[in-house]
Protein backbone atom coordinates (compact mmCIF):
# COMPACT_ATOMS: atom_id res chain seq x y z
CA UNK A 1 0.00 0.00 0.00
CA UNK A 2 1.11 3.49 -0.79
CA UNK A 3 -1.13 5.91 1.11
CA UNK A 4 1.44 8.69 0.77
CA UNK A 5 1.31 8.34 -2.99
CA UNK A 6 -2.48 8.41 -3.14
CA UNK A 7 -2.53 11.42 -0.86
CA UNK A 8 0.09 13.16 -2.97
CA UNK A 9 -2.11 12.88 -6.06
CA UNK A 10 -5.10 14.11 -4.11
CA UNK A 11 -3.17 17.08 -2.76
CA UNK A 12 -1.72 17.87 -6.16
CA UNK A 13 -5.17 17.93 -7.74
CA UNK A 14 -6.61 20.04 -4.94
CA UNK A 15 -3.77 22.53 -5.07
CA UNK A 16 -4.32 22.95 -8.79
CA UNK A 17 -7.89 23.87 -7.93
CA UNK A 18 -6.96 26.19 -5.08
CA UNK A 19 -4.70 28.16 -7.37
CA UNK A 20 -7.77 29.18 -9.32
CA UNK A 21 -10.13 29.14 -6.37
CA UNK A 22 -11.67 32.51 -7.14
CA UNK A 23 -12.66 31.52 -10.66
CA UNK A 24 -13.62 28.04 -9.55
CA UNK A 25 -16.08 29.35 -7.02
CA UNK A 26 -17.09 32.64 -8.59
CA UNK A 27 -18.32 31.02 -11.79
CA UNK A 28 -20.93 28.79 -10.13
CA UNK A 29 -21.99 31.57 -7.76
CA UNK A 30 -22.61 33.85 -10.71
CA UNK A 31 -24.41 31.24 -12.77
CA UNK A 32 -26.58 30.24 -9.81
CA UNK A 33 -27.43 33.87 -9.24
CA UNK A 34 -28.37 34.22 -12.90
CA UNK A 35 -30.58 31.15 -12.75
CA UNK A 36 -32.35 32.58 -9.77
CA UNK A 37 -32.80 35.99 -11.34
CA UNK A 38 -34.19 34.46 -14.54
CA UNK A 39 -36.04 31.36 -13.38
CA UNK A 40 -36.62 32.10 -9.74
CA UNK A 41 -37.65 35.74 -9.83
CA UNK A 42 -38.60 36.69 -13.39
CA UNK A 43 -40.34 33.52 -14.50
CA UNK A 44 -40.91 31.91 -11.14
CA UNK A 45 -43.03 34.79 -9.91
CA UNK A 46 -45.55 33.97 -12.65
CA UNK A 47 -45.46 30.22 -11.96
CA UNK A 48 -47.64 28.41 -9.55
CA UNK A 49 -46.09 26.15 -6.95
CA UNK A 50 -44.92 22.75 -8.16
CA UNK A 51 -46.11 19.88 -5.98
CA UNK A 52 -46.84 22.44 -3.31
CA UNK A 53 -43.31 23.87 -3.40
CA UNK A 54 -42.63 27.45 -4.52
CA UNK A 55 -40.99 27.34 -7.95
CA UNK A 56 -37.86 29.19 -6.83
CA UNK A 57 -37.32 26.59 -4.12
CA UNK A 58 -38.27 23.74 -6.43
CA UNK A 59 -35.35 24.40 -8.78
CA UNK A 60 -32.69 24.46 -6.04
CA UNK A 61 -31.99 20.69 -5.91
CA UNK A 62 -32.04 20.36 -9.69
CA UNK A 63 -29.67 23.27 -10.15
CA UNK A 64 -27.28 21.88 -7.56
CA UNK A 65 -27.37 18.42 -9.09
CA UNK A 66 -26.80 19.88 -12.54
CA UNK A 67 -23.63 21.61 -11.36
CA UNK A 68 -22.40 18.56 -9.45
CA UNK A 69 -22.85 16.35 -12.48
CA UNK A 70 -21.10 18.62 -14.94
CA UNK A 71 -18.36 19.68 -12.53
CA UNK A 72 -17.60 16.10 -11.50
CA UNK A 73 -17.27 14.91 -15.05
CA UNK A 74 -15.38 18.06 -16.05
CA UNK A 75 -12.94 18.02 -13.13
CA UNK A 76 -12.17 14.34 -13.21
CA UNK A 77 -11.79 14.14 -16.96
CA UNK A 78 -9.55 17.20 -16.99
CA UNK A 79 -7.51 15.88 -14.06
CA UNK A 80 -6.39 12.73 -15.86
CA UNK A 81 -6.47 14.11 -19.38
CA UNK A 82 -4.05 16.91 -18.56
CA UNK A 83 -1.08 14.66 -17.58
CA UNK A 84 -1.91 12.35 -20.45
CA UNK A 85 -1.75 15.25 -22.84
CA UNK A 86 1.30 16.96 -21.34
CA UNK A 87 3.24 13.75 -20.88
CA UNK A 88 3.62 14.01 -17.10
CA UNK A 89 1.59 10.81 -16.81
CA UNK A 90 4.88 8.93 -17.13
CA UNK A 91 5.49 9.58 -13.47
CA UNK A 92 2.23 8.01 -12.33
CA UNK A 93 2.75 5.03 -14.61
CA UNK A 94 6.25 4.44 -13.28
CA UNK A 95 5.33 4.96 -9.62
CA UNK A 96 4.46 2.22 -7.14
CA UNK A 97 0.84 3.32 -7.14
CA UNK A 98 -2.03 0.88 -7.66
CA UNK A 99 -5.03 1.72 -9.82
CA UNK A 100 -7.31 2.32 -6.88
CA UNK A 101 -4.75 4.58 -5.24
CA UNK A 102 -4.63 6.64 -8.41
CA UNK A 103 -8.42 6.66 -8.48
CA UNK A 104 -8.52 7.77 -4.87
CA UNK A 105 -6.30 10.73 -5.73
CA UNK A 106 -7.87 11.86 -8.98
CA UNK A 107 -11.50 10.95 -8.38
CA UNK A 108 -11.39 11.85 -4.72
CA UNK A 109 -10.15 15.34 -5.54
CA UNK A 110 -12.67 15.82 -8.34
CA UNK A 111 -15.52 14.69 -6.11
CA UNK A 112 -14.34 16.90 -3.25
CA UNK A 113 -14.40 19.91 -5.52
CA UNK A 114 -17.89 19.09 -6.75
CA UNK A 115 -19.25 18.65 -3.26
CA UNK A 116 -17.71 21.94 -2.13
CA UNK A 117 -19.19 23.56 -5.19
CA UNK A 118 -22.60 22.07 -4.49
CA UNK A 119 -22.40 23.46 -0.99
CA UNK A 120 -21.55 26.91 -2.33
CA UNK A 121 -24.51 26.75 -4.71
CA UNK A 122 -26.87 25.69 -1.94
CA UNK A 123 -25.63 28.57 0.21
CA UNK A 124 -25.97 31.05 -2.63
CA UNK A 125 -29.49 29.80 -3.33
CA UNK A 126 -30.30 30.32 0.30
CA UNK A 127 -29.82 34.04 -0.23
CA UNK A 128 -32.69 34.01 -2.73
CA UNK A 129 -35.10 31.51 -1.33
CA UNK A 130 -35.66 29.74 1.97
CA UNK A 131 -36.01 26.17 0.80
CA UNK A 132 -36.80 23.36 3.22
CA UNK A 133 -34.35 20.53 3.89
CA UNK A 134 -36.26 17.46 4.96
CA UNK A 135 -33.38 14.97 5.16
CA UNK A 136 -30.08 16.85 5.45
CA UNK A 137 -27.89 13.79 6.01
CA UNK A 138 -29.39 11.96 3.04
CA UNK A 139 -29.06 15.12 0.97
CA UNK A 140 -25.35 15.19 1.74
CA UNK A 141 -25.06 11.48 1.09
CA UNK A 142 -26.68 11.89 -2.33
CA UNK A 143 -24.39 14.74 -3.13
CA UNK A 144 -21.28 12.74 -2.29
CA UNK A 145 -22.54 9.62 -4.06
CA UNK A 146 -23.34 11.54 -7.22
CA UNK A 147 -20.08 13.44 -7.12
CA UNK A 148 -18.04 10.26 -6.74
CA UNK A 149 -20.00 8.36 -9.37
CA UNK A 150 -19.74 11.03 -12.01
CA UNK A 151 -16.12 11.75 -11.16
CA UNK A 152 -15.40 8.09 -11.85
CA UNK A 153 -17.28 8.42 -15.11
CA UNK A 154 -15.33 11.59 -15.90
CA UNK A 155 -12.08 9.77 -15.22
CA UNK A 156 -13.01 7.17 -17.82
CA UNK A 157 -13.81 9.91 -20.33
CA UNK A 158 -10.54 11.69 -19.56
CA UNK A 159 -8.57 8.54 -20.34
CA UNK A 160 -10.64 7.71 -23.40
CA UNK A 161 -10.57 11.15 -24.97
CA UNK A 162 -7.79 11.84 -27.44
CA UNK A 163 -7.57 15.59 -27.49
CA UNK A 164 -9.47 18.36 -25.84
CA UNK A 165 -12.35 18.41 -28.34
CA UNK A 166 -13.24 14.82 -27.58
CA UNK A 167 -13.12 15.66 -23.91
CA UNK A 168 -16.06 17.98 -24.48
CA UNK A 169 -18.12 15.61 -26.61
CA UNK A 170 -19.60 13.41 -23.95
CA UNK A 171 -20.44 16.22 -21.53
CA UNK A 172 -21.97 18.51 -24.14
CA UNK A 173 -23.57 15.90 -26.38
CA UNK A 174 -24.96 13.55 -23.76
CA UNK A 175 -24.71 14.94 -20.27
CA UNK A 176 -26.04 18.46 -20.81
CA UNK A 177 -29.17 17.35 -22.71
CA UNK A 178 -29.82 14.62 -20.15
CA UNK A 179 -29.53 17.01 -17.25
CA UNK A 180 -31.66 19.69 -18.87
CA UNK A 181 -34.31 17.14 -19.74
CA UNK A 182 -33.85 15.48 -16.38
CA UNK A 183 -36.32 17.69 -14.58
CA UNK A 184 -34.00 20.28 -13.13
CA UNK A 185 -36.54 22.98 -13.84
CA UNK A 186 -39.78 21.02 -13.84
CA UNK A 187 -41.44 18.00 -12.40
CA UNK A 188 -41.86 15.26 -14.99
CA UNK A 189 -45.45 15.10 -13.76
CA UNK A 190 -45.85 18.39 -15.61
CA UNK A 191 -44.98 16.76 -18.95
CA UNK A 192 -47.65 15.69 -21.45
CA UNK A 193 -48.35 12.03 -22.13
CA UNK A 194 -45.56 10.55 -24.32
CA UNK A 195 -42.75 12.69 -22.94
CA UNK A 196 -43.39 11.69 -19.43
CA UNK A 197 -42.82 8.01 -20.24
CA UNK A 198 -39.82 8.86 -22.41
CA UNK A 199 -38.31 10.80 -19.53
CA UNK A 200 -38.35 7.67 -17.41
CA UNK A 201 -35.52 6.36 -19.59
CA UNK A 202 -33.36 9.30 -18.59
CA UNK A 203 -31.21 8.26 -15.62
CA UNK A 204 -30.74 11.86 -14.56
CA UNK A 205 -34.47 12.10 -13.87
CA UNK A 206 -34.05 9.55 -11.11
CA UNK A 207 -31.01 11.27 -9.74
CA UNK A 208 -32.62 14.68 -9.53
CA UNK A 209 -35.95 13.41 -8.35
CA UNK A 210 -34.43 11.44 -5.51
CA UNK A 211 -32.20 14.34 -4.57
CA UNK A 212 -35.25 16.60 -4.55
CA UNK A 213 -36.92 14.16 -2.22
CA UNK A 214 -34.22 14.81 0.38
CA UNK A 215 -35.31 18.46 0.34
CA UNK A 216 -39.09 18.31 0.00
CA UNK A 217 -39.88 14.75 1.03
CA UNK A 218 -41.64 14.30 -2.31
CA UNK A 219 -40.43 12.37 -5.37
CA UNK A 220 -41.61 11.54 -8.90
CA UNK A 221 -39.82 8.22 -8.83
CA UNK A 222 -38.75 5.63 -6.31
CA UNK A 223 -35.83 6.82 -4.22
CA UNK A 224 -34.38 3.32 -3.64
CA UNK A 225 -34.48 2.66 -7.37
CA UNK A 226 -32.59 5.88 -7.97
CA UNK A 227 -30.07 4.98 -5.32
CA UNK A 228 -29.60 1.53 -6.76
CA UNK A 229 -29.19 2.85 -10.29
CA UNK A 230 -26.56 5.34 -9.17
CA UNK A 231 -24.64 2.65 -7.32
CA UNK A 232 -24.89 0.46 -10.40
CA UNK A 233 -23.44 3.19 -12.57
CA UNK A 234 -20.68 3.74 -10.04
CA UNK A 235 -19.80 0.04 -10.09
CA UNK A 236 -19.76 0.11 -13.87
CA UNK A 237 -17.39 3.07 -13.95
CA UNK A 238 -15.14 1.44 -11.37
CA UNK A 239 -14.93 -1.72 -13.43
CA UNK A 240 -14.10 0.36 -16.48
CA UNK A 241 -11.25 2.08 -14.64
CA UNK A 242 -9.96 -1.20 -13.28
CA UNK A 243 -9.86 -2.59 -16.83
CA UNK A 244 -8.18 0.57 -18.11
CA UNK A 245 -5.32 0.13 -15.69
CA UNK A 246 -5.17 -3.62 -16.13
CA UNK A 247 -4.85 -3.39 -19.90
CA UNK A 248 -3.15 -0.01 -20.17
CA UNK A 249 -5.92 1.09 -22.57
CA UNK A 250 -5.08 4.54 -23.92
CA UNK A 251 -2.52 4.96 -21.15
CA UNK A 252 0.34 2.84 -22.45
CA UNK A 253 1.28 2.13 -26.05
Amino acid sequence: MNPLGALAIYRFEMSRWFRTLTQSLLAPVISTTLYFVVFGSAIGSRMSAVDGVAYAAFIVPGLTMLSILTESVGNASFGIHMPKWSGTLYELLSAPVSWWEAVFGYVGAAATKSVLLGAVILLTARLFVAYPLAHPAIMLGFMVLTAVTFSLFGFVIGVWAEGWERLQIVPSLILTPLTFLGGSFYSIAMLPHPWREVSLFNPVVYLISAYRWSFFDRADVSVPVSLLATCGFMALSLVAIWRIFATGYKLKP
Partner: protein
Amino acid sequence: MTDSSDSQGPAQSPAQSLAGSPILQVRGLAKTYAGGFQALKPTDLEIRAGEIFALLGPNGAGKTTLIGLICGLIRPTAGTVSVGGFDHVRAYRQARALIGLAPQELATDAFESVWATVRFSRALFGKPRDDAYLRRLLEDLALWDKKDSPIMALSGGMKRRVMIAKALAHEPRLLFLDEPSAGVDVELRREMWGLVRRLRDAGVTIVLTTHYIEEAEDLADRVGVIAKGALILADDKEALMRRMGRREISLHLTTPLAALPHGLGDLPLERVDDGARLVYAFDARGEAASVSVLIRRLSAEGIEVRDLETRESSLEDIFVGLVGGPR
Protein backbone atom coordinates in the same frame (compact mmCIF):
# COMPACT_ATOMS: atom_id res chain seq x y z
CA MET B 1 32.30 -30.32 7.55
CA THR B 2 30.06 -30.58 4.50
CA ASP B 3 27.21 -29.52 6.73
CA SER B 4 28.88 -26.32 7.86
CA SER B 5 29.98 -25.33 4.39
CA ASP B 6 26.44 -25.91 3.18
CA SER B 7 24.98 -23.63 5.80
CA GLN B 8 27.63 -21.01 5.21
CA GLY B 9 27.01 -20.85 1.51
CA PRO B 10 23.59 -19.26 1.47
CA ALA B 11 24.43 -16.97 4.39
CA GLN B 12 27.38 -15.51 2.55
CA SER B 13 25.95 -15.23 -0.91
CA PRO B 14 23.63 -12.22 -0.40
CA ALA B 15 26.49 -10.09 0.86
CA GLN B 16 28.77 -11.29 -1.90
CA SER B 17 26.11 -10.76 -4.54
CA LEU B 18 25.71 -7.09 -3.65
CA ALA B 19 28.65 -5.98 -5.71
CA GLY B 20 28.43 -6.70 -9.39
CA SER B 21 25.25 -8.75 -9.14
CA PRO B 22 22.45 -7.77 -11.48
CA ILE B 23 20.02 -5.17 -10.14
CA LEU B 24 18.12 -5.43 -13.39
CA GLN B 25 17.44 -8.58 -15.34
CA VAL B 26 15.69 -8.39 -18.68
CA ARG B 27 14.68 -11.63 -20.36
CA GLY B 28 13.30 -11.86 -23.87
CA LEU B 29 11.79 -8.42 -23.63
CA ALA B 30 10.19 -7.40 -26.92
CA LYS B 31 7.83 -4.78 -28.23
CA THR B 32 5.72 -4.64 -31.34
CA TYR B 33 3.68 -1.44 -31.46
CA ALA B 34 0.01 -1.41 -32.37
CA GLY B 35 0.78 -0.62 -36.01
CA GLY B 36 2.76 -3.87 -36.25
CA PHE B 37 6.17 -2.21 -36.06
CA GLN B 38 8.69 -4.22 -34.08
CA ALA B 39 10.56 -1.58 -32.12
CA LEU B 40 12.41 -4.03 -29.90
CA LYS B 41 13.38 -7.55 -30.79
CA PRO B 42 13.54 -10.09 -27.94
CA THR B 43 16.24 -8.68 -25.72
CA ASP B 44 18.24 -10.00 -22.80
CA LEU B 45 20.11 -7.58 -20.63
CA GLU B 46 21.65 -7.54 -17.20
CA ILE B 47 22.64 -4.39 -15.39
CA ARG B 48 25.03 -4.88 -12.50
CA ALA B 49 24.45 -3.12 -9.24
CA GLY B 50 26.57 -0.02 -8.96
CA GLU B 51 27.56 0.42 -12.56
CA ILE B 52 26.97 3.15 -15.12
CA PHE B 53 25.56 1.62 -18.26
CA ALA B 54 25.41 3.72 -21.40
CA LEU B 55 22.94 2.80 -24.07
CA LEU B 56 23.96 4.00 -27.50
CA GLY B 57 22.16 3.80 -30.79
CA PRO B 58 20.92 5.98 -33.61
CA ASN B 59 17.56 7.76 -33.56
CA GLY B 60 14.69 5.33 -33.57
CA ALA B 61 16.88 2.40 -32.54
CA GLY B 62 14.65 1.49 -29.61
CA LYS B 63 16.46 2.95 -26.60
CA THR B 64 13.45 4.81 -25.23
CA THR B 65 11.25 1.82 -25.97
CA LEU B 66 13.51 -0.44 -23.90
CA ILE B 67 13.51 1.97 -20.98
CA GLY B 68 9.74 2.49 -21.25
CA LEU B 69 9.18 -1.24 -21.15
CA ILE B 70 11.30 -1.66 -18.05
CA CYS B 71 9.71 1.28 -16.24
CA GLY B 72 6.11 0.30 -16.97
CA LEU B 73 5.27 3.00 -19.50
CA ILE B 74 4.93 0.59 -22.39
CA ARG B 75 3.18 -2.77 -22.48
CA PRO B 76 5.66 -5.52 -23.36
CA THR B 77 4.73 -7.86 -26.18
CA ALA B 78 6.87 -10.53 -24.56
CA GLY B 79 9.48 -11.02 -21.89
CA THR B 80 10.07 -10.40 -18.23
CA VAL B 81 11.84 -7.75 -16.18
CA SER B 82 13.05 -8.10 -12.66
CA VAL B 83 14.41 -5.23 -10.61
CA GLY B 84 16.37 -6.06 -7.50
CA GLY B 85 14.85 -9.53 -7.72
CA PHE B 86 11.27 -8.21 -7.95
CA ASP B 87 9.21 -8.98 -11.03
CA HIS B 88 8.06 -5.68 -12.46
CA VAL B 89 4.49 -6.89 -12.97
CA ARG B 90 3.81 -9.23 -10.08
CA ALA B 91 5.80 -7.22 -7.53
CA TYR B 92 5.42 -3.87 -9.24
CA ARG B 93 5.41 -1.89 -6.02
CA GLN B 94 8.79 -3.15 -4.83
CA ALA B 95 10.24 -3.09 -8.33
CA ARG B 96 9.11 0.45 -9.12
CA ALA B 97 10.12 1.83 -5.75
CA LEU B 98 13.72 1.01 -6.73
CA ILE B 99 13.51 2.82 -10.06
CA GLY B 100 13.87 6.49 -10.89
CA LEU B 101 13.13 7.68 -14.41
CA ALA B 102 13.98 10.90 -16.19
CA PRO B 103 12.42 10.48 -19.62
CA GLN B 104 13.66 11.94 -22.85
CA GLU B 105 10.65 14.16 -23.45
CA LEU B 106 10.45 17.24 -21.28
CA ALA B 107 7.14 16.90 -19.47
CA THR B 108 6.53 18.98 -16.40
CA ASP B 109 3.64 20.61 -14.60
CA ALA B 110 4.12 24.14 -15.86
CA PHE B 111 2.39 25.91 -12.99
CA GLU B 112 3.98 23.96 -10.15
CA SER B 113 7.05 25.28 -8.38
CA VAL B 114 10.26 23.28 -8.51
CA TRP B 115 10.02 22.59 -4.81
CA ALA B 116 6.41 21.44 -4.97
CA THR B 117 7.10 19.13 -7.88
CA VAL B 118 10.04 17.32 -6.28
CA ARG B 119 8.10 16.97 -3.05
CA PHE B 120 5.23 15.52 -5.03
CA SER B 121 7.52 13.02 -6.73
CA ARG B 122 8.93 11.84 -3.43
CA ALA B 123 5.50 11.36 -1.90
CA LEU B 124 4.16 9.65 -5.03
CA PHE B 125 6.76 6.96 -4.53
CA GLY B 126 5.63 6.53 -0.96
CA LYS B 127 8.64 8.09 0.72
CA PRO B 128 8.15 10.21 3.81
CA ARG B 129 8.96 13.87 3.55
CA ASP B 130 12.66 14.72 3.78
CA ASP B 131 13.28 18.38 3.04
CA ALA B 132 16.99 18.17 3.86
CA TYR B 133 17.52 15.50 1.24
CA LEU B 134 15.52 17.38 -1.38
CA ARG B 135 17.43 20.54 -0.63
CA ARG B 136 20.75 18.77 -1.17
CA LEU B 137 19.38 17.29 -4.36
CA LEU B 138 18.34 20.65 -5.77
CA GLU B 139 21.66 22.14 -4.75
CA ASP B 140 23.47 19.32 -6.52
CA LEU B 141 21.52 20.07 -9.67
CA ALA B 142 22.05 23.84 -9.38
CA LEU B 143 18.33 24.36 -8.92
CA TRP B 144 18.14 25.51 -5.34
CA ASP B 145 17.82 29.19 -6.18
CA LYS B 146 14.97 28.30 -8.53
CA LYS B 147 13.06 26.25 -6.03
CA ASP B 148 10.14 28.66 -5.81
CA SER B 149 9.92 29.40 -9.52
CA PRO B 150 7.06 27.92 -11.47
CA ILE B 151 8.55 25.36 -13.84
CA MET B 152 7.28 27.21 -16.89
CA ALA B 153 9.59 30.08 -15.96
CA LEU B 154 12.67 27.84 -16.31
CA SER B 155 14.88 27.34 -19.32
CA GLY B 156 14.92 24.05 -21.20
CA GLY B 157 18.13 22.88 -19.57
CA MET B 158 16.77 23.74 -16.15
CA LYS B 159 13.60 21.80 -16.88
CA ARG B 160 15.73 18.82 -17.86
CA ARG B 161 17.46 19.05 -14.48
CA VAL B 162 14.09 19.35 -12.73
CA MET B 163 13.13 16.06 -14.32
CA ILE B 164 16.33 14.49 -13.05
CA ALA B 165 15.60 15.89 -9.61
CA LYS B 166 12.12 14.37 -9.75
CA ALA B 167 13.62 11.04 -10.74
CA LEU B 168 15.96 11.18 -7.75
CA ALA B 169 13.46 12.55 -5.25
CA HIS B 170 12.62 9.13 -3.84
CA GLU B 171 16.25 7.95 -3.62
CA PRO B 172 16.03 5.21 -6.25
CA ARG B 173 18.61 2.42 -6.51
CA LEU B 174 18.36 2.24 -10.28
CA LEU B 175 18.23 5.46 -12.25
CA PHE B 176 17.25 5.75 -15.89
CA LEU B 177 18.39 8.90 -17.65
CA ASP B 178 17.06 9.08 -21.19
CA GLU B 179 19.31 11.63 -22.89
CA PRO B 180 20.00 13.63 -19.74
CA SER B 181 22.42 15.98 -21.44
CA ALA B 182 20.17 16.96 -24.34
CA GLY B 183 19.85 20.72 -24.22
CA VAL B 184 22.14 21.13 -21.24
CA ASP B 185 25.07 23.49 -21.69
CA VAL B 186 28.65 22.26 -21.66
CA GLU B 187 29.53 23.43 -18.20
CA LEU B 188 26.39 22.04 -16.60
CA ARG B 189 26.81 18.86 -18.54
CA ARG B 190 30.19 18.38 -16.88
CA GLU B 191 28.57 19.06 -13.53
CA MET B 192 25.87 16.57 -14.34
CA TRP B 193 28.45 13.94 -15.14
CA GLY B 194 29.99 14.71 -11.79
CA LEU B 195 26.63 14.13 -10.17
CA VAL B 196 26.16 10.87 -12.05
CA ARG B 197 29.56 9.69 -10.81
CA ARG B 198 28.77 10.73 -7.26
CA LEU B 199 25.49 8.84 -7.46
CA ARG B 200 27.31 5.80 -8.69
CA ASP B 201 29.80 6.13 -5.85
CA ALA B 202 26.86 6.31 -3.48
CA GLY B 203 25.70 2.98 -4.85
CA VAL B 204 23.09 4.06 -7.37
CA THR B 205 23.06 2.11 -10.61
CA ILE B 206 22.65 4.30 -13.66
CA VAL B 207 21.42 3.51 -17.13
CA LEU B 208 21.69 6.42 -19.51
CA THR B 209 21.19 6.98 -23.18
CA THR B 210 23.11 9.57 -25.04
CA HIS B 211 24.08 10.69 -28.49
CA TYR B 212 27.31 12.19 -27.18
CA ILE B 213 29.65 9.30 -27.46
CA GLU B 214 32.37 11.04 -25.52
CA GLU B 215 29.88 11.11 -22.69
CA ALA B 216 29.58 7.35 -22.72
CA GLU B 217 33.33 7.03 -23.11
CA ASP B 218 33.89 9.31 -20.16
CA LEU B 219 31.25 7.99 -17.83
CA ALA B 220 30.24 4.47 -18.56
CA ASP B 221 31.52 1.27 -17.05
CA ARG B 222 29.64 -0.71 -19.64
CA VAL B 223 28.23 0.15 -22.99
CA GLY B 224 25.27 -1.28 -24.88
CA VAL B 225 24.54 -0.61 -28.50
CA ILE B 226 21.06 -0.85 -29.96
CA ALA B 227 20.40 -0.70 -33.67
CA LYS B 228 17.11 -1.35 -35.42
CA GLY B 229 15.50 -2.74 -32.29
CA ALA B 230 18.25 -5.20 -31.48
CA LEU B 231 20.73 -4.94 -28.66
CA ILE B 232 23.78 -5.85 -30.69
CA LEU B 233 26.23 -5.72 -27.85
CA ALA B 234 26.60 -5.01 -24.17
CA ASP B 235 30.11 -5.05 -22.89
CA ASP B 236 32.64 -3.47 -20.58
CA LYS B 237 33.78 -0.27 -22.13
CA GLU B 238 37.45 -1.13 -21.68
CA ALA B 239 37.00 -4.62 -23.08
CA LEU B 240 35.02 -3.21 -25.95
CA MET B 241 37.69 -0.71 -26.80
CA ARG B 242 40.36 -3.34 -26.52
CA ARG B 243 38.40 -5.77 -28.63
CA MET B 244 37.05 -3.44 -31.24
CA GLY B 245 39.28 -0.47 -30.94
CA ARG B 246 41.95 0.13 -33.58
CA ARG B 247 45.35 1.59 -33.12
CA GLU B 248 46.97 3.47 -35.93
CA ILE B 249 50.47 4.68 -36.55
CA SER B 250 50.57 7.42 -39.07
CA LEU B 251 53.96 7.89 -40.76
CA HIS B 252 54.70 11.17 -42.49
CA LEU B 253 57.24 10.63 -45.24
CA THR B 254 59.97 12.98 -46.32
CA THR B 255 59.25 12.28 -49.97
CA PRO B 256 55.88 11.01 -51.21
CA LEU B 257 55.79 7.39 -52.23
CA ALA B 258 54.37 6.48 -55.65
CA ALA B 259 53.63 2.88 -54.70
CA LEU B 260 54.14 0.57 -51.77
CA PRO B 261 57.29 -1.50 -52.29
CA HIS B 262 56.72 -5.26 -52.63
CA GLY B 263 59.08 -5.87 -49.76
CA LEU B 264 56.52 -4.37 -47.35
CA GLY B 265 53.57 -6.37 -48.65
CA ASP B 266 53.31 -8.39 -45.44
CA LEU B 267 52.61 -5.32 -43.30
CA PRO B 268 49.13 -3.72 -42.89
CA LEU B 269 50.28 -0.51 -44.47
CA GLU B 270 48.12 1.89 -46.39
CA ARG B 271 49.25 4.71 -48.67
CA VAL B 272 47.29 7.93 -48.05
CA ASP B 273 47.52 11.60 -49.12
CA ASP B 274 49.02 10.63 -52.47
CA GLY B 275 51.81 8.78 -50.79
CA ALA B 276 52.76 11.56 -48.40
CA ARG B 277 51.69 9.38 -45.52
CA LEU B 278 51.62 5.72 -44.64
CA VAL B 279 49.11 4.44 -42.13
CA TYR B 280 49.89 1.35 -40.15
CA ALA B 281 46.66 0.05 -38.59
CA PHE B 282 46.06 -2.91 -36.31
CA ASP B 283 43.30 -3.83 -33.91
CA ALA B 284 44.19 -3.44 -30.31
CA ARG B 285 44.27 -7.19 -29.72
CA GLY B 286 46.54 -7.92 -32.64
CA GLU B 287 50.26 -8.22 -32.24
CA ALA B 288 51.94 -5.08 -33.33
CA ALA B 289 55.43 -4.86 -34.58
CA SER B 290 57.38 -2.40 -32.51
CA VAL B 291 57.78 1.04 -33.94
CA SER B 292 61.55 0.64 -34.27
CA VAL B 293 61.13 -2.53 -36.32
CA LEU B 294 58.67 -0.73 -38.53
CA ILE B 295 61.02 2.21 -39.10
CA ARG B 296 63.94 -0.17 -39.79
CA ARG B 297 61.89 -2.06 -42.38
CA LEU B 298 60.93 1.21 -44.04
CA SER B 299 64.46 2.57 -44.17
CA ALA B 300 65.60 -0.78 -45.56
CA GLU B 301 63.35 0.06 -48.51
CA GLY B 302 64.86 3.55 -48.62
CA ILE B 303 61.77 5.22 -47.16
CA GLU B 304 62.56 8.09 -44.82
CA VAL B 305 60.11 8.95 -42.04
CA ARG B 306 59.88 12.64 -41.15
CA ASP B 307 57.34 12.35 -38.36
CA LEU B 308 54.93 9.88 -36.84
CA GLU B 309 51.85 9.94 -34.68
CA THR B 310 49.83 7.19 -33.05
CA ARG B 311 46.09 7.24 -32.59
CA GLU B 312 43.68 5.04 -30.68
CA SER B 313 40.15 4.73 -31.98
CA SER B 314 37.45 6.16 -29.78
CA LEU B 315 34.13 4.68 -28.84
CA GLU B 316 32.70 6.81 -31.60
CA ASP B 317 34.73 5.02 -34.26
CA ILE B 318 33.61 1.72 -32.81
CA PHE B 319 30.04 2.90 -32.80
CA VAL B 320 30.19 4.11 -36.37
CA GLY B 321 31.68 0.81 -37.36
CA LEU B 322 28.86 -1.08 -35.64
CA VAL B 323 25.77 0.78 -36.72
CA GLY B 324 27.02 2.48 -39.84
CA GLY B 325 27.16 5.95 -38.44
CA PRO B 326 25.07 7.79 -35.87
CA ARG B 327 22.36 9.83 -37.52
